[in-house]
């Protein structure tokens, strides 16, 4: 038994290929993402937005609650680049500050949704049988809940309780993030379960099982990393959906209190003054629109980038 098999001969001459293989998956994904021009543009716009809301208030040092009745409802000017509201408060400062909260709500709610979704999807896909059946019925049940009415109901009912327990800002933040995240995990759970069902039968997982890897290691090291592509795409779109959900709540007057000017809240205050102060509504609305559009394009680009089988037209 000293004969060398043909496969070994094929593999041995080029060992240097293997050292770069793990990095090149992400290089390839990045290259594919860059080919989606609008996604790249979206990423640039979103990056600019994030920098603006994070660093902006440190550079543009105008207080968000500086009331000046002499300068109320003014359009854009040198003193107030985006104009003022009905109390003469500077809109640029308010939009920069509110953007922090809107973006933070979006990202945190997405993380909640993905964590719950991955956990439930993985449990259903891995444990199969009765657990799978029960979890999928619960997922179906949550999918038929009318989201906004329920969101309104829960925020309304629990707002005072959490406000007392955690303070006005943190309480409302925790509530909104938990409720939005808790009502958006279902698509992720379904995706992850579907991935698990197909990946579980793949040869490399079988190999790991054959080598004696315990179930937890099989899941964490072998199946989950390969199931993450669609989850990342769904997650990016969830950020946009959560931002819209938070803005909708604030726009209906049931989100953050008036002293925390999220973009939706500014729109809520502005909507009755449209005829004589249109700038008040236009700027925060545009901020929401640009953020959501950028995130949606990034999601589209990630979809192209993370699915190696997808053919991208040149």
């Amino acid at each position, binding site marked *: 038994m000293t004969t060398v098999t043909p496969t070994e001969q094929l593999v041995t001459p080029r060992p240097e290929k293997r050292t770069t293989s793990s990095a090149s998956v992400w290089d390839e994904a990045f290259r594919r993402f860059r080919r989606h021009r*609008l996604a790249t543009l979206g990423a640039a716009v979103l990056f600019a937005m994030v920098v603006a809301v994070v660093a902006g208030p440190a550079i543009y040092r105008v207080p968000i609650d500086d009331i000046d009745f002499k300068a109320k409802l003014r359009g854009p000017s040198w003193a107030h680049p985006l104009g003022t509201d009905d109390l003469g408060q500077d809109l640029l400062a308010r939009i920069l500050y509110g953007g922090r909260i809107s973006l933070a709500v979006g990202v945190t709610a997405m993380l909640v949704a993905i964590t719950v979704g991955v956990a439930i999807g993985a449990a259903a896909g891995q444990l199969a049988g009765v657990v799978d059946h029960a979890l999928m*019925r619960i997922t*179906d*049940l949550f*999918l*038929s*809940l*009318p*989201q*906004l*009415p*329920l969101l*309104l*109901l*829960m925020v*309304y*009912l*629990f707002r*005072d*309780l959490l406000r007392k327990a955690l303070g006005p800002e943190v309480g409302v933040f925790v509530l909104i993030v938990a409720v939005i995240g808790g009502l958006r995990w279902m698509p992720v759970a379904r995706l992850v379960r579907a991935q698990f069902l197909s990946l579980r039968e793949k040869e490399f997982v079988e190999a790991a099982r054959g080598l004696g890897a315990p179930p937890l290691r099989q899941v964490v090291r072998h199946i989950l990393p390969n199931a993450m592509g669609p989850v990342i795409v769904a997650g990016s779109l969830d950020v*946009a959906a959560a931002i*819209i959900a938070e*803005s*909708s709540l604030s*726009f*209906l*007057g*049931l989100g953050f209190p008036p002293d925390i000017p999220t973009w*939706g809240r500014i*729109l809520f205050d*502005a*909507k009755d003054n*449209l*005829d004589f102060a*249109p700038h008040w*509504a*236009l700027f925060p*609305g545009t901020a*929401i*629109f640009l953020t*959501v*559009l950028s995130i*949606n*394009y990034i999601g*589209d680009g990630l979809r192209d980038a993370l699915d190696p089988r997808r053919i991208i*037209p040149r």
Partner: protein
Amino acid sequence: MSKYFIRRLLISVPVLLGISLILFTILALAPGDPFEELATNANVPAEVRQNLRAKFGLDDPVPVRYARWFTSMVRGDWGFSFVSRVDVETLILQRLPTTIIVLGTAQLLGILVALPIGTLSAMRPYSIFDQVATTLAFVGFSLPTFFTGLLFILFFSVYLDWLPFIYRADISATGVQWYWHHVRQAIMPVAVLGLFQGASLTRFVRSAVLDVIQLDYITTARAKGLSEKTTIVKHAVRNALIPVLTLVALQVPAIFTGAVITEQIFRVPGVGSLLISSILANDTPVIMAITFVFSCLVVLFNLIADLLYGWLDPRISYR
């Protein structure tokens, strides 16, 4: 087919039970008290309050209250609105037609926009038309309805002064004039909702047609000399509609979200704006009933989609 229908219908029952259970649990856990107003009113003695609580069974254990609430919901007795002083079912039935008309028209508009544009896009993928349409669709569903609504008001009501931005139920004009007023005030809410729906549907239609159009039977249809129009309309689009239909039904919850917001912006006297005003007025029976009605509608539309799916696609077995 009827066996399939009954099976689907039976599956909806536990879903409805589950939804009602979730709704009731949320309410039972919440700290609010419908008699709070009486509690703070010094003129109402404590025993009156106690008697009222006992009369409405507010101090009974939660499972008992759930059973009572669910049976009366099913019987059509949805309770009494504390604020409006009328029965909840009367209140909701008053508002429901407006919501259904606005939503239905908007959904129709969405489909009428999405079908031709999505199909044309898929026929010439990556052409100029496709790129413009796809970009507009992307912009369309990235624009939240509350912002589009404000933009429409700003442009068509404030700037151009063409359309009224407040929806009125009590229009005094008669005859043709009456219809004209109703159509005019419905244009903006319907357009805002319909274009948003149309934008996301366009993408579904495009990808569904794109999937079908590459199949062999389309090539066969072309090869046997059918005109391009017949090939597309009778062979491709018909089959592409099957997955699109499911998506339309699955989007029903999202449409309600849009309806609540548009009704609030344009002050349409529908169920959505009733929900908001009830929440602001702490009118619990109305809130519960509306959320329950929305859930029932979602389950109903899922059922309809399942049935239509089975009817359109003979490969689905009626197990």
